[in-house]
């Protein structure tokens, strides 16, 4: 009975007795969720337009952040470095399209998936050669990102909102909004959505497939820069950061591989879900459950909706 109490009653008692902690957990979950969603968004963009399950999204985050900080270290002013980083991501997108996607056009999705592994290896090696393996400190203040925290007293304690987290939520929301507008309202965006349905349709809009690939990879690169800056500011910029990208996978399948709203909602569910789970139930199992909890949540949803929450229903035609 004790164990049942601990599972089913105690956590909720805790929530009631220490609402500040609940609010804090939810907030932290929200922030994590938004950042997961941001990485997942990079995946979705590419998957939707080119059918590539881009495993390299994680290393792109690291690569973007490293480029930014590395340039700054060489004396390039912060915002110039940011601009140059955007340029580097554009070059990367073009390179990926030319050297990786073109030779692999029409291959099965698992092959493309594997190719992005090759890209990951390449970027890990190249990144280390260029920038070295040492961790770097994100130039948050040079980019006018706030530091410090806002604390609210009350609720039986206090709730502390890191300014960088607030900034992260705002920036992520803005990016998601911009991307949504871009894909819903612009010609290129419509073409991109058309690509998801049929490549012929895209051609009729007057944009070549190659261009679209470059655009989505570039967009994913920009998303990677944002993720890199925000996540780097939360800890440090190092190659270990790519592990974070694995977190985007459950988010992705939970939301549905092709859905932008799915990525956002999935990110929030996973972010908040895992933080709540770890915080209230994790100690029962000795902690550290966060790592698989996200996947189990995703798995649970998938069993009932195999295509994810927002994925297109898989209709089996015969």
């Amino acid at each position, binding site marked *: 009975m004790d164990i049942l109490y601990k599972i089913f009653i105690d956590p909720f008692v805790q929530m009631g007795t220490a609402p500040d*902690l609940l609010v804090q957990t939810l907030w932290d979950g929200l922030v994590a969720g938004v950042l997961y969603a941001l990485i997942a968004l990079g995946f979705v963009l590419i998957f939707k337009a080119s059918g590539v399950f881009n495993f390299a999204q994680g290393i792109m985050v690291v690569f973007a952040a490293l480029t930014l900080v590395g340039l700054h270290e060489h004396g390039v002013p912060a915002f110039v470095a940011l601009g140059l980083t955007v340029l580097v991501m554009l070059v990367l997108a073009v390179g990926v399209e030319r050297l990786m996607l073109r030779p692999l056009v029409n291959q099965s999705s698992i092959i493309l998936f594997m190719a992005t592994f090759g890209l990951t290896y390449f970027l890990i090696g190249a990144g280390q050669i260029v920038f070295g393996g040492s961790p770097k*400190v994100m130039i948050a203040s040079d980019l006018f990102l706030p530091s410090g925290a806002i604390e609210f007293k009350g609720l039986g304690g206090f709730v*502390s909102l890191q300014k960088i987290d607030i900034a992260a939520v705002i920036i992520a929301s803005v990016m998601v909004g911009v991307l949504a507008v871009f894909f819903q309202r612009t010609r290129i965006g419509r073409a991109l959505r058309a690509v998801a349905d049929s490549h012929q349709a895209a051609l009729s809009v007057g944009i070549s497939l190659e261009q679209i690939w470059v655009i989505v990879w570039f967009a994913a690169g920009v998303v990677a820069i944002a993720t890199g800056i925000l996540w780097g500011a*939360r800890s*440090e910029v190092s190659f270990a950061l790519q592990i*974070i990208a694995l977190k985007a996978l459950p988010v992705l399948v939970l939301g549905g591989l092709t859905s932008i709203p799915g990525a956002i909602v999935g990110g929030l569910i996973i972010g908040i879900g895992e933080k709540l789970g770890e*915080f209230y139930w994790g*100690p029962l199992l000795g902690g550290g459950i966060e790592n698989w909890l996200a996947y189990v949540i995703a798995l649970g949803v998938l069993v009932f909706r195999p295509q994810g929450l927002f994925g297109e229903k898989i209709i089996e035609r015969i």
Partner: protein
Amino acid sequence: MRLKHLALGLAVVTAAPAAAATAQAADGLYVPLFTYRTGPYAGSGIPVSNGLADYLNMLNARDGGIGGVPIIVDECETGYDTKKGVECYDSVKGKNPVIINPFSTGITLQLIPKAAVDKVPILSMAYGLSASADGNLFPWIFNPPDTYWDGAAAFIRHAADVEGGFDKLKGKTIGLVHLDAPYGREPIPLLQALAKDYGFTLKLYPVPGAQMQNQTALWLDVRRDRPDWIYLQGWGAMNPTAIKEAAKIGFPMNRLVGVWWSGSDDDARPAGAAAKGYSSLDINAVGSNFPAIQDIIKYVVDKGKSQVASKDKVGENFYDRGVMMAVLSAEAIRTAQKLTGKKQVTGEDVRRGLESLNITAAGWKALGLEGFAGPIHLSCADHNGHDAVALVQWDGTKWEKQPGMIEPIKDKVLPLIQSAAEDYVKANAGWPKRTEACDKSS
């Protein structure tokens, strides 16, 4: 066709180590260094690897090696990956290494059983298996100057000192934030024993490898539990994240103490001023203000023979840690030369040298490293020393050594080591009995 490819591959694989082996058949002390400058833990690995290699290279450049015999420094990149570490071991073991620095607890664990068979002494300085401090059962493994248990015990002593005595610990809550891997869990048994003895509550906060940079929920737990002290046994990117998160929840920084592997400059730097007051145990001094380190700069760094990114990285805490590893290796070899009277010593000789290793304060001074570390004295039975450790504190930009040294609680640690070593041997049926003779000097 397939055969042809296979043969070609085999040729390269078989020929490569052989070629290298012949290259160093000439006189020289073969010292392979398992270092890593790549992978997720590169942040911690780079400075240590640099210090380690640079000191030995300095000896070659300045003294022509040790006792006139050049040191053949052979770095093998492990990427902190056990698999590659074992690969490194296999590739060097045919070349008669005199001492091996695995520089990874995981790799050390793999090598412990092999060392006795291959007759290679393993120096796992302040890492590896705590139980291997027992020289009777682990004649080939050396982990001076302290085990993780000494570290944890020293931390408890420090906490007790601050609180005003061991009796003040009663009723306190002490947290252990650790990497959820063998390395991170190492102090748990000792802390549990001490918790029982001193009456404090131990809370464990494991950080899975994949969550290193995503510790928010864990620190919320900390905030809920409100521990009085936190001992941090982290590695790589886990450390800066933990320190930042600690600052975020407003945990008092002077109550956060890291093990010596959580004391890299790169660990504290990202948090910057917020980390002010964070302290870390240390086993070596910080800074480049030592003649030997100046020699490194002169003979190695300035000559462009070092891998350091810039000169100011020389003298960082972890760089000096690497230097200390190198000093212990070099001095073990020197001792072996003295013991045997041979210049070209073997692994077996160096094992004896390690057991007779004795670096006094004067000895450190003679090495041009006065006050660099406490005296190191090993024996056949004690491969560790369980020496007093220093404490350094982050002042917002760099580490400041705190006055005094902290003695580990030896009477608690030693019996635990004894029983752990016996457990290890019991679990590994057929563990060889020590047959190696003990030198008189030790």
